[in-house]
């Protein structure tokens, strides 16, 4: 059966769901969308996009390093992302005064982590070129090669991260918008800084195994940023962010099925279009 696009949406969707690989991709994509949209909402609010980008790049040395050491690739993702998150969180916590200089310091240390990660990834890759297909899969994802077992693992990690984010939702919001008053009220601001980066790292590690290291970032940034353009209400913003991310993944996968070009291109395009539309809508409102 060849994939041919018709004008009948029901037959198109039926066609999409015929194959197991497509069902797995949709399941995994849905989990990734919810996870990235929620973690990304806080990331955008906290203006930690640079830290988030660095964490997604960490998947590269993680995967190549694990392959070199003969360990499961997934383990490499989790170890590299959480190690980088803790390293960045610690430097941020110790250099987080209320001055502009402190923030530039933080940016510099994150940049350093990113460079070291990329360099290490390249080294691991050149030492071990035979085992991995090449950097393309790591960077741009393997959306269409997911097994049922991987979906289960992804679901478990996503539920754990989302549950923890739920528990810390309000103190984290308080610490993000008003850290000084939050600290005076007894909110453990420094611990939350580190914990949030760690959760973000885990979310990215889980998601980037499917979307690839570079495209996870599109899912982390664009839907929450579009949501925050449209509403200032925290709860509504989170829900909108999740809805946008689902649209991005479903549309991206759906279009890619009927096309010869990669999934990542379509998800990124849909995400960017949503963000641009949200900005336009806000300007017109």
């Amino acid at each position, binding site marked *: 059966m060849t994939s041919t696009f018709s004008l009948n949406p029901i037959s198109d969707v039926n066609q999409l769901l015929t194959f197991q690989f497509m069902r797995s991709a949709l399941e995994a994509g849905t989990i990734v969308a919810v996870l990235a949209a929620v973690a990304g909402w806080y990331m955008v609010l906290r203006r930690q996009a640079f830290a988030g980008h660095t964490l997604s790049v960490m998947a590269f040395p993680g995967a190549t390093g694990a392959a070199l050491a003969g360990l499961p690739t997934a383990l490499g993702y989790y170890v590299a992302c959480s190690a980088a998150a803790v390293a960045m969180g610690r430097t941020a916590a110790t250099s987080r005064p209320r001055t502009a200089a402190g923030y530039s310091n933080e940016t510099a240390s994150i940049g350093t982590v990113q460079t070291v990660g990329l360099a290490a990834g390249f080294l691991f890759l050149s030492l071990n070129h035979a085992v991995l297909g090449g950097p393309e899969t790591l960077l741009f994802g393997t959306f269409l090669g997911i097994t049922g077992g991987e979906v289960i693992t992804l679901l478990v990690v996503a539920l754990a991260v989302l549950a923890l984010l739920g528990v810390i939702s*309000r103190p984290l919001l308080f610490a993000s*918008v008003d850290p000084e008053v939050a600290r005076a*009220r007894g909110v453990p601001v420094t611990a939350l800084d580190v914990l949030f980066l760690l959760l973000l790292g885990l979310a990215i590690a889980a998601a980037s195994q499917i979307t690839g290291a570079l495209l996870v970032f599109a899912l982390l940034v664009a839907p929450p940023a579009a949501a925050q353009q449209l509403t200032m209400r*925290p709860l509504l913003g989170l829900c909108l962010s999740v809805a946008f991310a689902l649209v991005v993944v479903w549309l991206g996968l759906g279009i890619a099925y009927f096309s010869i070009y990669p999934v990542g291109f379509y998800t990124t395009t849909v995400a960017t279009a949503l963000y641009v539309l949200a900005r336009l809508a806000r300007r017109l409102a």
Partner: protein
Amino acid sequence: MAGLPALGDRAGAAPSHGPLSTALKLSDASIALGGRRILERLALEVGRGEFVAVLGPNGAGKSTLMRAILGLVPLQAGEAMVLGTRPAQARSAIGYLPQRRSFDQSVRVRGVDLVTLGLDGARWGLPIGLSASARARRRAERTKVREMIELVGAGAYAQRPIGQLSGGEQQRLLIAQALVRDPELLILDEPLDSLDLPNQAAVAGLISRICTSSGVTVLLVAHDVNPLLGYIDRVIYLAGGRALSGPVDEVITATKLSRLYGAPIEVLRTADGRLVVVGTPEAPHHHGDRHEHP
């Protein structure tokens, strides 16, 4: 949850713990910051329900003293009793407005959400009421937030992003945030800073009204005493690591301040009752962003 006062049950009620008449007592308290001693053997007492201005030149340790009262900075020596207990333990009964410039333009958080965070921001768990009692509590909290916003007169702009409000509007919402848990002690660090003169007078009057009506003790850090004259019960004047405390007319005098600074100081009174302190070692135009009007 422990330490969470029931909503609205404190107005006019007798203070629940500690020596009834004392909100704050420092004995022989010394504070050091980065190895440098900022405040030396302070002895201070503030009564419950008093409106006290904390004055002094920049770098005198006003903000540091406030942070020590909150338990955010440890005492190097001596003792502090806040609301009858140790500083850090009293935190849940203190409303705090830290010294800050303001929220910048791009902060997309509504004023009402910021006030709400003052009420429930330290609570773990999802902000969704699942049981009937949780829903009732959330309703009561929303009412409380609305009341506070009305009290400070911010109803007209509480739904707008905080970063797009004027300094005076932001300050009113932040005062509502500090008040929303019915604190017994209110610590306001330079709330009049960056406000124009009419707004300084209006905010000072507002704080004084709240202090009288709810019986809350207020410590207000200020750069200039003049907008507060007529409202405050007492001043605490910090300089050179030491402190003077008492009514305005007894503390802000040439003799007392000269002794505190260890330098000759003159205090002038203008025809309309304003106080001008002349000869302080601090350069008067050091801070371009402040409204000084000696």
